[in-house]
């Protein structure tokens, strides 16, 4: 058996030896008398020292996948077999980012052979994939001079999904749509709901589609109404997880807002029937291949759950974004706080024929919030720096707009839905006008 003596044991032993040496030096018998109770104490510790033990443990988590900050109940059962243990400190090794809201994760008990100990607690956590590794057990006798630590490997995990904002339909206009019917106007006539135009009647046209009003104005010619065909699109979501663009304040990063926006957009696009893929661009490139349906929604949410900010010299700007991963002329939705050196990447994407929508959680508004909380928002340095940064960002966003990139600058204090519908509504009108003018 491993000698489980603690520092206190050695301190006491040293103490006894010191008294003994003093006695030998001075021949004062009283010094030995002082050492006797300590010797008895040490002997008791050795006598009751924990021996070989065996544990069987089972941890039950009531849900494998939960929403962010939703309560999760955990139950840990530990069956002890071995000699009687004076003191058994059982502590579940809970991942450190989780908050315990109810119950106990540690318990101190005296265990008899065959006895079962149960820990029940409730916890909640921010977005993430949490792995429980095991249970820490510390066996000791009452004096605490002999301790035997045991780490019982017991793996469980659960995912706390990101917050998914509910969005009304997000209107996008990709250059190219695909195959079957879907929610997007396909810029061509066919079966649909929106009026597209009229053409002369052809044999076989359904009678109820004849435009009687127009036909009545012409002799011997009938006109048929045409409707705009609606199809689905390929949408590539690109989540910027680069460390240099995602600022943090009080352990919360603006990246969390980006993740939430990506989850909301993926949810909405998939609900509309589009084919959606995801690329997380940070330390590496985590990718979810294009797909549709509920199962695919889970795949994307799980990828977003484990998304982390990372720094990689190779991927330090968006120029290295592998756009070839996305179908030609498809819709790209980039969720990024945006860096000043990212403009060329957008220009390249537009040149390659992609329709680009940029959703940019405003890092300046986020930083300003942080300064306000510290009471520094009125300092001259902060005001001037903020003004310069705002000008730089506005110029960058205006340049992107000129490139034909739809931009949504999101002040994270406002709900995402409000930001996206306000921005896209205005820009659709602008793009429609430009198209009409042939620009």
């Amino acid at each position, binding site marked *: 058996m491993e*000698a489980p*003596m603690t520092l*206190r044991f*050695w*301190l006491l*032993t*040293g*103490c006894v*030896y010191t*008294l*003994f*040496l*003093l006695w*030998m030096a*001075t021949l*004062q*018998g*009283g*010094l*030995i*008398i*002082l050492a*006797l*109770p*300590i*010797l*008895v*104490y040490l002997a*008791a510790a050795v006598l009751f020292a924990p021996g070989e033990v065996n544990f069987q443990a089972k941890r039950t988590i009531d849900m494998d996948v939960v929403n962010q900050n939703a309560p999760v109940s955990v139950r840990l059962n530990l069956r002890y077999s071995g000699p009687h243990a*004076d*003191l058994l*400190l059982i*502590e579940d090794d809970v991942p450190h980012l989780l908050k315990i809201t109810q119950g*106990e994760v*540690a*318990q*101190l*008990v*005296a265990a008899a052979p065959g006895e079962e100990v149960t820990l029940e607690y409730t916890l909640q956590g921010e977005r993430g994939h949490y792995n429980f590794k095991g249970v820490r057990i510390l066996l000791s006798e*009452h*004096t*605490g001079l002999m301790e035997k630590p045991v780490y019982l490997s017991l793996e469980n995990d659960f995912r706390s999904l990101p917050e998914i904002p509910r969005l009304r339909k997000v209107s996008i206009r990709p250059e190219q749509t695909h195959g079957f019917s879907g929610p997007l106007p396909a810029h061509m006539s066919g079966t649909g709901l929106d009026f597209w135009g009229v053409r002369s009647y052809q044999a076989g046209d359904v009678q109820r589609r004849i435009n009687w009003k127009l036909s009545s104005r012409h002799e011997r010619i009938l006109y048929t109404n045409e409707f705009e065909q609606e199809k689905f699109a390929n949408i590539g979501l690109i989540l910027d997880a680069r460390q240099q663009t995602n600022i943090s304040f009080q352990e919360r990063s603006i990246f969390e807002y980006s993740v939430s926006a990506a989850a909301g957009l993926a949810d909405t696009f998939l609900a509309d029937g589009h084919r959606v893929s995801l690329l997380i661009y940070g330390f590496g490139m985590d990718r979810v291949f294009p797909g549709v349906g509920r199962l695919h929604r889970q795949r994307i949410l799980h990828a977003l759950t484990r998304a982390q900010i990372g720094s990689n010299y190779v991927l330090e700007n968006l120029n290295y974004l592998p756009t070839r991963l996305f179908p030609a002329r498809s819709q790209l939705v980039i969720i990024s706080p945006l860096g000043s050196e990212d403009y060329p990447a957008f220009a390249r994407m537009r040149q390659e024929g992609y329709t680009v929508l940029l959703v940019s959680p405003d890092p300046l508004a986020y930083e300003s919030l942080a300064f306000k909380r510290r009471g520094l928002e009125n300092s001259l340095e902060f005001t001037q720096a903020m003004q310069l940064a705002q000008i730089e960002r506005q110029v960058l966003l205006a340049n992107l707009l000129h490139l034909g990139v739809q931009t949504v600058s999101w002040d994270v204090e406002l709900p995402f839905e409000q930001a996206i519908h306000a921005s896209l509504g205005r820009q659709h009108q602008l793009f429609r006008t430009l198209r009409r003018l042939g620009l």
Partner: protein
Amino acid sequence: MSLIGRAKWFSLAIAVILLAAGYALAGIWPGFLAALVLGAIGWFRPRPIRAYTGTVLFFALLGQAALGVLSQVSDPAMLFVSLAALAYWDLDAFVTRLQRVNRGPLTSKLEQVHLVRLLMILGIGLGIGLVGLTVRLQLGLGTAMLLSLIVILGIRFGVMVLQEKGSPD
């Protein structure tokens, strides 16, 4: 305050009072004052040594008891000081261990079992100590040398164990 907390303060008070009284009766007033200072340290738990107050006080009390023996202060009183200081250190460590978990229904029972076990150890220690106070042994040179050898070998063993614990393997 819990049963074990009360017992801890009680043992500290006993140790300090007996130590102070022993030095006062022997007329050694610096020792008396030092005992009071130790009591004050235990009561106020100064921030720099707060985490180690139990250990610091135990060794200080025991050290002063040893000095008391060397200064011809009453041996039985110093034995009681040694017992009370040991009880204080033990209970302080136990309270620290209890603080790692929240109090539950089992905690009171554990406290009671711990106190019983401690009282038994102290009782045996006291008994042996009192016997030691009454018995006078004359040690010959050979016995003294044998004891010295045991001490030296014991120290050597302790150092070896410490070195093994400290080695990276």
